[in-house]
């Protein structure tokens, strides 16, 4: 059974209104456990919308979306939050870290919502930071870290719940090339250990880290 199965998926914004816009038009896609997929496309092609739908941050207008055997369309908000919390890890271009919290507390955050006890949380967060090579910077606040380090903290946070899939939306977009490649090496290493990774990028050099490439144009998969 594939981890993700998408059939004829459509996403239409402002449906029935003058400014109606079809972001996704009949997307079909399967992703297996352990895959490393790069979704490529120009700005406005629909790649981030697809990412949001896959990450349960947005609901499709029509079509089928199965995640780990569950039909996402049939789930309520509470159940979607549960899936986001337990099965999906997010990495964003702008890191989305809380500026007033040290790295370790940022990494702990998903475990707080999961109700894990403080000691266990702290140990797990430190372990994750060590995994991404930041074991010596657990107390550093975001303003004391470089772009590459910030993204690695975000990766550690995304991994802390042991998600089934890691969604990375332009994870190197705000980084210099060297930091970008470092982050990609971390993601590649995680994939080798079995983590499924879905990467959204418009940079072919970054996309080459994936073992499968999907091109999106005007909301459709072109190859």
């Amino acid at each position, binding site marked *: 059974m594939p981890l993700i199965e998408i059939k004829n998926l459509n996403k239409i914004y402002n449906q029935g209104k003058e400014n109606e816009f079809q972001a996704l038009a009949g997307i079909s896609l399967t992703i297996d456990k352990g895959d490393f997929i790069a979704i490529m496309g120009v700005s406005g092609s629909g790649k981030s919308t697809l990412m949001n739908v896959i990450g349960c*941050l947005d609901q499709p207008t029509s079509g089928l979306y199965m995640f780990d055997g569950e039909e996402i369309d049939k789930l309520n*908000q*509470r159940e979607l*939050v549960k899936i*986001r*919390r*337990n099965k999906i890890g*997010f990495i*964003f271009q702008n890191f*989305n*870290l*809380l500026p007033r919290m040290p790295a370790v507390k940022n990494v702990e*955050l*998903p475990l*707080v*919502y*999961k109700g894990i006890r*403080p000691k266990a949380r702290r140990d797990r967060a430190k372990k994750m930071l060590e995994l991404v090579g930041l074991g010596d910077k657990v107390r550093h606040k975001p303003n004391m870290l470089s772009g590459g380090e910030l993204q690695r903290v975000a990766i550690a*946070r995304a991994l802390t*719940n042991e998600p089934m899939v890691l969604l990375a939306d332009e994870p190197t977009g705000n980084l210099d090339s060297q930091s970008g490649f470092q982050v990609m090496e971390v993601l590649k290493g995680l994939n080798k250990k079995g983590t499924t990774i879905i990467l959204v990028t418009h940079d072919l050099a970054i996309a080459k880290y994936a073992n499968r490439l999907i091109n999106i144009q005007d909301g459709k998969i072109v190859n």
Partner: protein
Amino acid sequence: MFLFLYRTIKFAVQGFFRNFWLSLVTIIILVLTIFSITVVAGINVVAEQAIESVQDKIDVSIYFKPGVSEEEVINVRDRLQELSLVESVLYVSKSEALEKFRVQHQDDQIILDSIDQLEENPLSATIVVKANNLDDYPTILAVLENPEIDALVLDKNFDDNKLVISRLSDLSDKIKRVGIIISSIFVVIAILIVFNTIRINIYTHREEIAIMKLVGSSNWFVRVPFIFESIMYAIIAVIISVAILYPLLGLVAPQVSNFFDGYNLDLIEYASSNFLRIVGLQFAFAVILSVLSSSLAIGRYTRV
């Protein structure tokens, strides 16, 4: 649970101090709202107690003609006692009336001497009738109009207190109406201010909220601190309004008691014996108001 509570309180306190002046204005408006509603309720209590006191003093005194025998008076008393509208009937015989008269005028020797010079007791027997309700007196008076009874009666004295009650009721109604209008205005302002304060706080935390949601926070986890913050405003507002209200009552209560001299009206005693009830009602009202307006703001501005 303890950690959740700790985090909620910490978040609420942070929100309070992050927009300190806005929080202060919110609390002041809540204090004014609670205060105005308490004053309206207080006026209602004073009016009700005053009306009750005056009602206690209302009765109908029936004075019988000098020649009427004791048996005839007792017959009338018994007939009145049978009426369900009557609460009590007090029979004052001629000799009792004279005795009372002497006691009342014990310091006036001229009156006492004049009474002594008369050969017969000049006072007539009296019946004092008290009705269950103020509205029952016209029916009782109608019974007394019966020719059989009317032939025995010299005079009837239905107290003027009825006029006092009617005026007191009118005044209390007017004050209540004005008070309700003022309180309603404050309630609307308070809802808008609390709504706006929480909305601004949500806006201040918007990035944090978005991140919390992205990493799997439930709506409940995001919303509770804001609700708690509004409850904190309510608690502070109640404490301030009680701190103002009770000393102020100490100043006003003697004036009110003087105004209603002779009536049993002790506001301090009332406020002390009903302290928990008053504070509880104020607290419940303030919390409902705050939670309602903050929930509106939260529901509108913290959607995923």
